[in-house]
């Protein structure tokens, strides 16, 4: 029976090639997008899931509640790990991990440097490898990192340093030009989908601040993982935590601190906290993609249902004959579902090809190594089978039910009419839903693109173009050479200005601290972003002063520049008043006097409002960057010369630089990705919706041929007939717009609310989406209805 059904299904599909093509095209594109989205979400959810203890592993993170906000921090105070090990009973293991990095040198037997490279490295406690069961190739993880100045390498690093990982153990490395580390172990490379991309693990015992006692100093580089004992619940830790907090946080800061236990699975998915891989994909983004995927599938299914029910009329005779021959309703349904599943299956095959073709583009867009392995990832074929069944039944069930329910006598006489019955109404509702989805996506795309353009073009209050940010080392020896470096770079032709600073005006890393203003008895009730720089900072970045002047050259005078927002928050009436007042930070008894007030500039991405900022004059250890403002004429040439100068000044270090403009563009990576995704998916949905529409209008036109012929001999013009056919579709699309607007408005407004600097939501994206949808509908429908209206009336009016 199934074989027969399949044969008939194939014949029917072949007979109606046009509809089959439309169905397969729409479904396959929709399915390909769904597969892509599934692969991506599946990959994102696979982060950190390879460990045996994954359900018992938590990361300890920090949190502060301030008067005007809160802060989330992935790091913990350095004394936290030993204290927790001591105070909590329900923890099997506690391990600290500290990010570091610097120059590694490998020397050959003669003592000559064979390899010099800057690498990221981590100081790790041996317990870490009890929590995470990394596969070790050589050495014992518990013993390997027990002693100071020992190091374990990933297979890749060991091969890089020593040519062959088998020979690495026992050899030595020089780190930061001072420590000599002995290789005691080699572990398997950490997979890409890992939040802790450890390549070099150095014994924590050798970490210089490992015994630091400060509970107030927290860096995102110091993190802590815990392993819960079997059978205990993370909620049971709340009580001991309270006691713990009271015990160690004795002095009161300006914020109320707390620590949370973050499940391992969320380390990759909670964008509020960073991680060592610098990759988080928020649940919101995943949910957004999921919604788009569902939208796509619905749109494709709607095409299917519409075309199938429309086509049902022309098959009514077959159904009638079958019923008269004794076919039961169930058997008919089985036959129609077989057809649907056959189509869906073909669509899946095409979808696989499309997926394979689109995957590199997608991997590139997300900068992730994702692959489409049918056999290596068994979950993908399972998903695909599930999708085929889902689409087959959702799309096939309703038409099958309608068709198999025809009255056989009417059906044989071809007198079944679906157009006026419930099917017609349902079809209209489905078309409206489909177009509402399309309009929502078009509107969303327009708004995202507009917001991106706005962020690109908004003046930031400083000039980021043609500025190179060159890393400089900040150890005490290197600091002595700052002036030499500065003067040599400045002499280079094409260099306009140079400044040593901690960060540029706009930066993702900012260092916040509390302070007192004008000898006030207590700290200001907010923290300020603290930057340090020399006297050329304002000139280099084109920052504008609204009062006072820039720093003097005299290193002994302690000076500070503040921004407008800081004064506003302090309720200082005018910038001139602030000049000469004293700012004291971190218990400094003398403080620095305010010499200038700088006009507000955006100090980070445009999602955030402008922070209160203190720019301190200093070229001490907080300096990390040499900012070089260049002529735009020969930037590559100038950069090459700067690199040469740098290498001659710091032969022991490794040169690295970025451009200010690139750093700023990186803030909007997720917007760029969202923008591209929306563009692509909106395009796909428009395509699917409109081929569906084309199929439907073809059908309606065929069905109404007789009526059109009658009207024609009654004296209707072609234009009138085209209008008649078009109007019902235009009304549906118009209705879809009305439905879509409020929904789109809610989505868009929610999305825009993330931005402190955002475009005003105007009616234009809505109007544009309406014109696009109506325009394309008009074109699609007119094309077909014009053809129908032109057909010869005689052919249609032949006797039945």
């Amino acid at each position, binding site marked *: 029976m199934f074989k027969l059904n399949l044969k008939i299904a194939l014949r029917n599909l072949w007979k109606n090639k046009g509809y089959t093509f439309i169905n397969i095209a729409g479904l396959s594109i929709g399915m390909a997008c769904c597969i892509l989205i599934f692969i991506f979400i599946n990959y994102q959810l696979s982060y950190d899931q390879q460990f045996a203890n994954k359900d018992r592993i938590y990361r300890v993170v920090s949190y502060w509640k301030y008067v005007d906000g809160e802060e989330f921090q992935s790091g913990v105070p350095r004394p936290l790990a030993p204290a927790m090990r001591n105070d909590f009973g329900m923890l099997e293991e506690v391990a600290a991990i500290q990010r570091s990095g610097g120059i590694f040198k490998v020397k050959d037997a003669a003592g000559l440097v064979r390899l010099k490279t800057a690498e990221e490295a981590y100081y790790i406690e041996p317990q870490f490898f009890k929590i995470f069961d990394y596969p070790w190739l050589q050495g014992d993880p518990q013993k390997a990192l027990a002693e100071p100045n020992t190091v374990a390498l990933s297979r890749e690093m060991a091969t890089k340093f020593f040519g062959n990982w088998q020979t690495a153990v026992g050899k030595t490395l020089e780190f930061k030009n001072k420590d000599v580390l002995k290789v005691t172990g080699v572990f398997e490379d950490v997979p890409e989908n890992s939040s802790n991309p450890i390549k070099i693990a150095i014994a924590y015992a050798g970490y210089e601040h490992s015994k630091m006692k400060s509970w107030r100093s927290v860096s995102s580089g110091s993190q802590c993982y815990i392993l819960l004992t079997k059978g205990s619940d993370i909620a049971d830790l709340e009580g001991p935590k309270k006691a713990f907090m009271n015990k160690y946080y004795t002095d009161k800061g300006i914020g109320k601190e707390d620590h949370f236990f973050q499940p391992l699975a969320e380390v990759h998915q909670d964008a509020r906290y960073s991680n060592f891989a610098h990759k988080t994909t928020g649940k919101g983004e995943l949910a957004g993609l999921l919604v788009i995927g569902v939208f796509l599938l619905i749109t494709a299914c709607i095409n299917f249902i519409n075309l199938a029910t429309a086509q049902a009329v022309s098959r009514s005779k077959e159904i009638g004959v079958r019923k008269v021959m004794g076919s039961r309703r169930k058997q008919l349904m089985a036959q129609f579902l077989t057809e649907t599943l056959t189509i869906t299956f073909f669509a899946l095959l095409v979808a696989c090809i499309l997926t394979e073709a689109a995957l590199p583009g997608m991997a590139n867009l997300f900068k992730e190594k994702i692959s489409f392995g049918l056999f290596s990832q068994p979950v993908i074929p399972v998903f695909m089978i599930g999708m085929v069944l889902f689409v087959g039944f959702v799309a096939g069930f309703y038409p099958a039910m309608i068709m198999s329910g025809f009255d056989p006598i009417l059906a044989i006489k071809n007198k079944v*009419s679906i157009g006026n019955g419930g099917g017609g109404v349902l079809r209209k509702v489905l078309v409206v839903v489909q177009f509402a989805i399309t309009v929502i996506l078009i509107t969303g795309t327009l708004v995202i693109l507009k917001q991106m353009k706005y962020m690109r073009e908004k003046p930031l209050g400083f000039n980021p173009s043609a500025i190179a940010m060159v890393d400089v080392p900040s150890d005490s020896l290197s600091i002595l050479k700052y002036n030499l470096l500065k003067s040599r770079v400045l002499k280079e032709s094409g260099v306009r200005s140079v400044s040593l600073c901690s960060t540029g005006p706009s930066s993702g890393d900012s260092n916040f601290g509390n302070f007192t203003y004008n000898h006030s008895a207590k700290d200001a009730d907010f923290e300020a972003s603290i930057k340090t720089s020399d006297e050329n900072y304002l000139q280099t970045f084109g920052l504008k002063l609204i009062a006072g002047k820039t720093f003097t050259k005299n290193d002994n005078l302690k000076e500070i520049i503040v921004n407008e927002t800081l004064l506003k928050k302090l309720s200082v009436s005018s910038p001139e008043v602030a000049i000469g007042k004293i700012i004291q930070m971190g218990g400094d008894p003398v403080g620095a006097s305010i010499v200038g007030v700088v006009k507000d500039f955006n100090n980070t991405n445009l999602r955030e409002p402008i922070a209160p900022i203190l720019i301190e004059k200093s070229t001490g250890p907080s300096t990390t960057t040499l900012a070089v403002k260049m002529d735009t004429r020969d930037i590559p040439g100038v950069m090459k010369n700067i690199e040469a100068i740098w290498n001659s000044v710091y032969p022991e270090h490794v040169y690295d630089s970025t451009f200010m403009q690139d750093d700023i563009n990186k803030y909007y990576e997720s917007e760029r990705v969202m923008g591209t995704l929306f563009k692509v998916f909106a395009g796909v949905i428009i395509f699917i919706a409109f081929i569906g529409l084309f199929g439907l209008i073809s059908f309606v036109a065929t069905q109404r041929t007789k*009526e059109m012929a009658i009207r024609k001999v*009654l004296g*209707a*013009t072609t234009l009138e007939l085209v209008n008649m056919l078009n109007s019902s579709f235009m009304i549906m699309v118009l209705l879809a717009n009305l439905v879509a607007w409020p929904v789109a408005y809610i989505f868009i407004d929610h999305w825009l609310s993330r931005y402190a600097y955002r475009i005003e939501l105007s009616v234009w994206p809505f109007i544009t989406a309406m014109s696009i949808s109506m325009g394309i509908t008009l074109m699609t429908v007119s094309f077909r209805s014009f053809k129908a209206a032109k057909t010869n009336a005689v052919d249609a009016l032949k006797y*039945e």
Partner: protein
Amino acid sequence: MIQLQNIEKYYANKGVKSYILRHVSTTIQQGEFVSIMGPSGAGKSTLLNILGMLEEPTYGTYEFMGENVVSLNERKRIELYRNHIGFVFQAYHLIDEMTVAENIEAPLLYKKVGSAERKSRVAEMLDRFNMVAKRDLFPNQLSGGQQQLVGIARALAAQPLIILADEPTGNLQSAQALQIMELFRKLNEEENITIIQVTHSEINAGYGNRILHLLDGVISEDLQVVV
């Protein structure tokens, strides 16, 4: 009113011409009631379609009210439909989605007749055909004869000079058929409407005043009916 000269119609298929009509020449005056008769495949319907400008002859000239209409553009042809020609079909060809009254109103809409005038004409038609009670019914709620009456009412609503009827009684029982024929005769005699019908029935043809016999695409006989 209608002048056909040397009308030919053939379909060329792989170089072989299959003729439907050959050398058809005739003149039909205003107020005639013409029946076209002949066996199946003689070309009756094609001739009627050419008269109704639904098909174009391959050769020959066709003058309708002194105007050559063979290669008339669509706009002008539609003008003629709207103002002068009414069609009646064997299968009635009413629009299933519209009520009786709406069906009758349809040609008036295309003729751009004002709303008040439309209403009165529809009412007049309904009254004349005794269908006032059925004005809001749909075609599938009527018997075949009633449907054909609506079809004729629709054709008359636009006040045409000529009615072209293709086997108007082909689907009807004889009693109903006689009723339709009586109606045609009445229209022809009282309102001087030219009627051209295709029919198989000698009885129906007897209602008219002229019979054109077609045989294999050629007019074999042109008889005046003497009452």
